[in-house]
């Protein structure tokens, strides 16, 4: 009779590490599932002593905090991993960077001091249109409330995008930087773009380039990263 239980003991994590990484260049087109696989493979290639979940199909303990949507670039993505042996974050950083595909780049690794979720309250986004949006952004900024609808499998939800946006800065006539507060649900950059088109329907419905510049606690004028 073959064994029906995995021939492997469950080993609990002894250390939790928080990783900040960037999604650059063509990697912005990776979906959440895509870079999740890339991360798990990189962790194996770098021989990180990962903690695995118990059970018949164990999977490495990696928790991704609010990942940027497919198509958006980011300088400030975060994840958390559990390891079964103490590791030196600075050594790990170099090894992981070498094991990841170009464009998924480690920015920093620290030993967890507190939960990531609480530290990540808002994101600073840069959105670039292929057209001039000065007046559109001014009209958006002048409004108090602009709602857009999100259609999900669970149904329709209305999000007041404008109310969650702050610190709007036009860095050039085609480029907006904006702090978006994390909420239930958090507006995506595409929804900010849609909300702007609500007040400025003249802006053509064309793809924009969105980059998350920072993630952390918001303060007037920007966002403070946890590390």
């Amino acid at each position, binding site marked *: *009779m*073959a*064994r*029906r*239980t*995995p*021939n*492997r003991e469950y080993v609990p994590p002894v250390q939790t590490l928080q990783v900040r990484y960037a999604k650059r*260049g*063509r*990697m912005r*087109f*990776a*979906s959440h*599932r*895509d*870079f999740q*696989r*890339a991360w*798990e*493979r*990189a*962790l*194996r*290639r770098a*021989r990180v002593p990962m903690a*695995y979940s118990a059970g*018949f*199909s*164990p999977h490495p303990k990696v928790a991704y905090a609010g990942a940027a949507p*497919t*198509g958006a670039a980011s300088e400030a993505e975060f994840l958390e991993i559990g390891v079964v042996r103490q590791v030196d974050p600075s050594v790990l950083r170099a090894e992981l960077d070498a*094991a990841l*595909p*170009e*464009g998924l780049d480690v920015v920093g690794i620290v030993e967890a001091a507190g939960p990531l979720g609480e530290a990540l309250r808002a994101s600073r986004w840069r959105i670039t249109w*292929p057209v001039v949006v000065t007046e559109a952004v001014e009209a958006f900024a002048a409004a108090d409330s602009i709602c857009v609808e999100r259609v999900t499998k669970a149904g329709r939800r209305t999000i007041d995008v404008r109310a969650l946006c702050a610190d709007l800065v036009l860095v050039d006539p085609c480029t907006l930087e904006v702090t978006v507060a994390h909420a239930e649900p958090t507006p995506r950059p595409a929804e900010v773009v849609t909300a702007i088109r609500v007040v400025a329907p003249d802006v053509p419905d064309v*793809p924009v380039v969105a980059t998350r510049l920072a993630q952390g606690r918001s303060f007037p004028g920007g966002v403070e990263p946890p590390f």
Partner: protein
Amino acid sequence: MVQSVFAELERILPLVRKPIQYVGGELNATVKPWDSVAVRWALMYPDAYEIGLPNQGLQILYEVLNERNDVLAERTYAVWPDMEALMREHSIPQFTVESHRPVGAFDVLGVSFATELGYTNLLTALDLAGIPLHADDRGDGHPLVIAGGHAAFNPEPIADFIDAAVVGDGEQAVLRLSDLIRDVKAAGGGRADMLDAIAASGVAYVPSRYEVTYLPDGRIRRVVPTSPEVPWRVSKHTVSDLDEWPYPKQPLVPLAETVHERASVEIFRGCTRGCRFCQAGMITRPVRERSKTTVADMVQTSLEATGFEEVGLLSLSSADHSDIADLTKGLADRYEGTNTGLSLPSTRVDAFNIDLANELARNGRRSGLTFAPEGGSERIRRVINKMVGEDDLIRTVAAAYAAGWRQVKLYFMCGLPTETDEDVLQIARMAKEVIRTGREVSGRRDIRCTVSIGGFVPKPHTPFQWAGQLGWAATDARLQMLRDEIRSDRDLGKAIGFRYHDGRPGIVEGLLARGDRRIGAVIEQVWRDGGRFDGWSEYFSFDRWMAAAERVGVDVDWYTTRERDQAEVLPWDHIDSGLDKEWLWQDWQDSLDGVEVEDCRWSPCFDCGVCDQMGTRIQIGPSEGSILPIVQVR
């Protein structure tokens, strides 16, 4: 200077489904400076990225070519219709995924056809690349379009569209082609000179250097080289010592999800079981094994290079490796207690396989168990030379249930030569017996088996190349009957899953597999009518194919359901797979008489012709050495 089209591409990527498949950036991809080499290959797998990327053949050639200093190779795949429409709208050409260079700028477009259903996708790629569809219309500035893969053993249906076809193992052939092309380029020669050099060398088949004439009744009269320098027949390539070619060493790891999320190591090439329906087994002879130490090294190298968690040990019939017991035990020992999984696809039906599967399941991962009896009755299994007895089969599957497997898949074909309704109905009886016995030996009622069945398509270079294919309506009727028979017993029937492919796509595959040069017009018409991704049921249109055939005056039945006689010149007779046509005919006759043929690995040679003709020999173990544990450095 050849420019990347990425800037233009980036603007449309947010508008397509799964954009990641078009951006490249895979781990272990190679990007070389354009001007650093003499010969540039664009390698294409004519299906979606998710299917094409894991393809071992293409990955091997990619690495073999890129290891050469004077050659570069990049990859390109079929783009989905949403992408195609946007590329046309924005004038973006077919591009490679590494550097997004236009395919039209390369010296060679090498296309690997695992199946004939990729032909329309070739035309899309050519058209998007700005390469004229017809080889005749191409000039010095256009790449040579070279086909390879199993379907290239009958390249005639795509003779209009390709400049050459490589037959057999590609590793050495692509290097020889690179040399020929480099030398002609260095001497200032153009396209015609390259094709002359290739045709004369016999390294690849150049359709334009052969003339086909027909008899009044439509059969081929003969196929004649157009110049005395060109050989009458083009021979397949055979790599002799696979230990010398341990590729891929650095398997590509995609960002996008693909059909095989694992590394693969080919443990041997070729198969001499002699299953008469199996083109792969016939055209890849003889058997050439990798030694167990090479396999073990390749497994470890692949794991380190990729970060995959699973390694598949590939071949046409993996349990037949002469060292398979040592190999599986050695690897299972080495990776025991890790999260590394091993899988052994393509195994035959016998109890030995349950032991192997048990070894590989030590880490708790159980890949599914699949057996392929192929035919439902003992009689039909003698016809196809798949020698497995009913009792053995039941015993094997029962052993699997007893060993803890709950789910077993059984593969069959419908429409085999001489098949009757009774042969197919036997499948239902076999499946019920499997469940009955399985419940008895396991003491459980939650065991299941799945019967998976598709229509048989006669293929070139097999003993069934002369056979009449069963029409689609008759295939569908038999499948319906089988389904009813499985469902007839409610208690057993509910434990049996039934999966089938209807008969229509098989007829198109049959037309393309055994077609001649006159089929090219059908392919082109279908493509002009919108045919794309014919291997995908959501895109395939039988009616489109039939309408196109009628429009260009091709009688589909004549190519598919018609039985050929011994004297007929077959469209692929001038492609030498090594198999002696007389021997194939004799095997066809033996099949009709229900006479079986042994495997030449364990019995004397029965003169199929391959080793004599190709100067090759069977290479099997057992080999020296043992599989050592990997010492972890930290």
